[in-house]
């Protein structure tokens, strides 16, 4: 393991990139803010707290998923992944570095949503701690999905479309911007293929917006482990 490399990679590929071209940050907060506005207008403000909590989930999940584009670009187009293979780092160091750099893109958006959460009196120390735990698992699981996609893709052009579709299906369809109780349980379990679903359900319960649904804690932990294991298996470090 070379955690120092992962941190420097995040510094260069995340922080420096934000400083020189903030479009990533703006792009990442555009969708959740737009949906927050729509929910506010359509529900006359009654569901806005759901959209604030869901905004955290969407921001982290969509960033994790769209990192597939960069992972595929660095592997197929720039050949940067090949460059790093013949060094002392492992595929895990590389994955963590890329994941952390994308996590940095979400920091300004998370700060903005935190301000909204404070304004709506949603935060308490315990709730914040639980939320951090949920968002860490969401980051790991969605990044793992993105590495599985990036490793499977053979032509760079395909990745833009796939991540666009997945980002919508896996972050907008789940109950991120509306109460999960609107959906039958069977549908919830189907939607739980996206880690954003258990994450949103756990947070709605934690923030007192909907009843607690404890099964989803195990679903999120299980998914994180499974997706990470699959990513480690499928990430093509030495190609076959």
């Amino acid at each position: 393991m070379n955690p120092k490399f992962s941190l420097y990679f995040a510094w260069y590929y995340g922080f420096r990139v934000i400083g020189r071209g903030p479009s990533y940050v703006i792009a990442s907060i555009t969708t959740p803010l737009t949906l927050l506005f729509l929910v506010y207008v359509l529900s006359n403000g009654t569901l806005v707290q759901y959209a604030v909590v869901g905004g955290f989930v969407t921001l982290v999940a969509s960033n994790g998923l769209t990192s597939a584009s960069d992972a595929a670009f660095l592997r197929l187009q720039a050949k940067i992944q090949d460059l790093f293979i013949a060094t002392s780092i492992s595929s895990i160091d590389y994955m963590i570095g890329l994941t952390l750099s994308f996590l940095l893109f979400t920091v300004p958006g998370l700060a903005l949503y935190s301000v909204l959460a404070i304004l709506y009196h949603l935060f308490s120390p315990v709730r914040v701690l639980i939320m951090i735990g949920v968002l860490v698992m969401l980051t790991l699981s969605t990044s793992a999905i993105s590495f599985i996609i990036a490793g499977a893709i053979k032509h760079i052009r395909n990745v833009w479309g796939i991540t666009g579709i997945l980002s919508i299906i896996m972050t907008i369809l789940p109950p991120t911007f509306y109460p999960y109780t609107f959906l039958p349980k069977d549908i919830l379990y189907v939607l739980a293929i996206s880690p954003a679903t258990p994450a949103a359900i756990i947070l709605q319960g934690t923030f007192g917006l909907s009843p607690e649904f404890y099964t989803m804690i195990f679903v999120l932990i299980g998914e994180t482990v499974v997706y990470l294991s699959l990513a480690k298996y499928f990430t093509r470090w030495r190609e076959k």
Partner: protein
Amino acid sequence: MIQINNVRKRYSDGTEALKGINANIGKRITSVIGRNGAGKTTLMRILSTQLEPSSGEVIIDGLDVMKDTLEVRKKVCSIPQEATPIGILTPLEHVTLYLLARKFQYRDARREAMNALDSLGILEYKDKPSDTLSGGTKRKIFVAMAIASNADTVFLDEPTTGLDPVSRMEVWSSIRKLQSNLIVTTHYMEEAEELSQEVFMVEGGLVIEKGEVKDLLSRFRGKVRAESHTPLDGAIRISNTFVKYIDEDDASEYIRMGCTVKKVTLDDVFILRGVSIES
């Protein structure tokens, strides 16, 4: 020393890229030459632990690339063909990050990166985003990584493809500064002649010729190449060109006949093997 024993590679789509490569590479600078699609990049990727061979064995300084992968990776540096810098990062950041991946301390990485960029004459661009740099300078960023890497063996896959003649000469000059053992793939014969002590010619996934450049050219001693667009007795036809190897003393006669007469190069070793010149 690199020993390549009967290395084969068949991709999942059925393409047989390598059909049993055998070679012992021991010179300081060795070129692997061949046309596009000959199998050069596949071979380089196997040697530098980026790709698994279907069968066969590669030993680098006593280490098996499949069994001792982590040890091999510490000793080699591999610059992929068509590697492109991340546009928004600077040359200094690229080389520093690469050295951090090789477990350099941050200060050492930065210092070595600066030295390497300086030795390549691109220190003045160290803080400019890479997407503002010329193709030659971008390529030199990767050569700088190789120079700074301190690796025992450096693999450079087509380091000058797509560069203008001046940039190519600059990169050659930089490559000569490397202290490591160097394996370079190229399809430019003059590059192989200029740089290397030993040449492996690859075609159709096999090594078709190997040896020192002077030995490969020795069979043409006293000969020059005459080219014509009209048929010549005993000439080899390559597309619409007829090529014949003649004594130097007969050159003026062939020039009077309208032929172009050229010095013999490694191209001609290829031609004699029935392989057309890279256009």
